[in-house]
């Protein structure tokens, strides 16, 4: 996370020490507990981490869509310099779908099954701009065209169930693009899709980012997607960002032992037929996180001092890691 130089514009999004907790009967779930990262204009940040590490909650926190019993309890979310965490619901509503858009994971569930596509698109246009229905329809048609849906005029009159998963996800992306937002939060938008369809969508997203200059937070657990798509990467573990940096650098020479293990366990990183490198143990429950570094119990490098929670420290320029004993040695060899 390079310090923004004083004369350049603020980054599109800067999340600092974000904390979002769920106050359940069983106790406080620290779903997001100290997350920080920055996304510059037109950049793609890949947010990776295992299931339950708090990626989605981070996304919803940015959108201001954390539902009770969840609440943002700390930190700031600076969007073009404004702290979203401090905005009123009404102000937030004006940003949502307008300046910040979101794409959800499951394309089968994100569109309202009983409303036609045009209704769902036009209402989005009209929610933020006073335009005639005709004009809104025109915008919707253009957006559909942009994501590569053939004969958008006809398609507007369809219901979601008449589309395949890939098509629906494209509609969702089109809806996100309606107001040419400055930031798109994409929560695993291709995970539910087939490989070839995922390829199509990724290609389109790449093209769009390049043409519109929109910044993108791409949430996924698939390191290979991030590798191909993102500029920067943030790795989450148990509600915290444990590593942040340029995609290439991080993937080639991860600092944090967790990132290290994660990348190591990707099959294609391993020699065929040989046992995969694996991280022993499993992710701890967010309800009762161990004291100190939450990765401690699974970490081969853990030592006494790991009983103290490490801070996200920039060990190298633009390379941050939350670890007392990062793999600095390998950076040198890489």
């Amino acid at each position, binding site marked *: 996370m390079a310090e923004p130089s004083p004369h350049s514009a603020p980054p599109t999004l800067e999340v600092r020490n974000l904390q979002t907790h769920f106050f*359940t*009967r069983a106790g406080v779930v620290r779903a997001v507990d100290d997350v920080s990262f920055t996304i510059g204009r037109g950049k793609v940040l890949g947010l990776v981490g295992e299931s339950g590490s708090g990626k989605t909650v981070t996304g919803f926190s940015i959108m201001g869509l954390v539902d009770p019993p969840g609440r943002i309890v700390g930190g700031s979310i600076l969007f073009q310099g404004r702290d979203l965490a401090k905005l009123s619901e009404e102000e937030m509503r004006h940003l949502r779908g307008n300046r910040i858009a979101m794409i959800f994971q499951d394309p089968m569930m994100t569109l309202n099954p009983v409303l036609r596509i045009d209704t769902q698109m036009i209402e989005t246009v009209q929610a933020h701009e006073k335009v005639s229905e005709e004009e809104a329809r025109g915008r919707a048609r253009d957006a559909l065209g942009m994501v590569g849906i053939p004969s958008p005029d006809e398609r507007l009159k369809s219901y979601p169930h008449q589309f395949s998963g890939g098509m629906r996800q494209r509609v969702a992306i089109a809806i996100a693009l309606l107001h040419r937002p400055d930031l798109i939060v994409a929560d695993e938008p291709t995970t539910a899709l087939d490989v070839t369809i995922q390829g199509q969508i990724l290609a389109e997203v790449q093209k769009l980012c390049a043409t519109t200059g929109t910044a993108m937070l791409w949430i996924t657990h698939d390191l290979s997607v991030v590798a191909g798509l993102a500029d920067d990467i943030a790795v989450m573990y148990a509600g915290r960002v444990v590593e942040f940096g340029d995609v290439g650098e991080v993937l080639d020479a991860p600092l944090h032992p967790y990132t290290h293990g994660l990348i190591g366990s990707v099959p294609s990183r391993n020699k065929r037929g040989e*046992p995969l490198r*694996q991280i*022993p*143990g*499993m992710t701890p429950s967010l309800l009762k996180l161990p004291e100190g570094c939450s990765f401690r119990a699974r970490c081969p490098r853990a030592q006494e001092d790991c009983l103290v929670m490490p801070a996200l420290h920039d060990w190298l320029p633009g390379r941050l890691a939350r670890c007392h004993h990062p793999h600095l040695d390998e950076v040198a060899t890489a």
Partner: protein
Amino acid sequence: MSAVVGQGTPVVKDPGAKDKVETPFRRFASEFMESRLALGGLVVISIIILLAILAPFISPQDPYDLAVLDIMDGRMEPGSLSGDGSITYWLGTDDQGRDMLSGILYGLRISLTVGAGSAFIACMVGASLGLAAAYAGGRTDSIIMRIVDLQLSFPSILVALMILAFLGKSITNVVIAIVVVEWAYYARTVRGTALVERRREYIEAAECLALPRYRILFRHLLPNCLPPLIVIGTMQVARAIALEATLSFLGLGVPITEPSLGLLIANGYEYMLSGKYWISFYPGIALLVTIVAINLVGDQLRDVLNPRLQK
């Protein structure tokens, strides 16, 4: 075949693994307890069931024994002393000189028997047929489901009326009538759930393990169809009690000499205008409390057992 586990596959240990085994029942129970209202309902039902079971021992009078009733004690106000001075009618008497308190306690017995009995039998019949339909599929399925449709396409109260008109009055016949009316709900519910459950992979796994069919049906499929069954079961108990009351009101319920709550209400109902409220008021309260309590419990069960609302 060695059972050696290499270091590549470490045994997963979980601290505190041995202390408490959270059975599905226990988990369900703790979730159920979360609603104080439902807990209250459960307590009330327990008390009511206890009262009903103990009725012969705690009620001042055997309201079914014509020898101890005296019409000269008929329609006495709550708190009156019987003609021979032997008992105090705390809740008054009905037209036959029947102690209302005893009548209500015994009436609870009958209402609960009818309600629970008919719900239970209907559940057994309906669940078996529904399960068979879902598992066998094909022709069996469509025959059973057509019968269910037929049954459901017919207003329950009319069916019950017809059956009772045909069979005559008795507790058994009321139970039969309610079973005939309600089995179809169970069958449909179980079939619906079973159709979903039987596509789940654990059933395939059981088939893959070449387990006998009955075992798959009753050990794997049935237990997983239970939650919705329990929910409609409780609700249907309440419904059955209300239905019995209505049938009694329409003159086709249990015999007059063994009055259920419904019949007590129907009897006393004629006295409402003349101010002898207690003859139907107290049984009415008893009926209401019972049904409300059952519904409260059923309601919470529905929430707890609903997979879609499960956390």
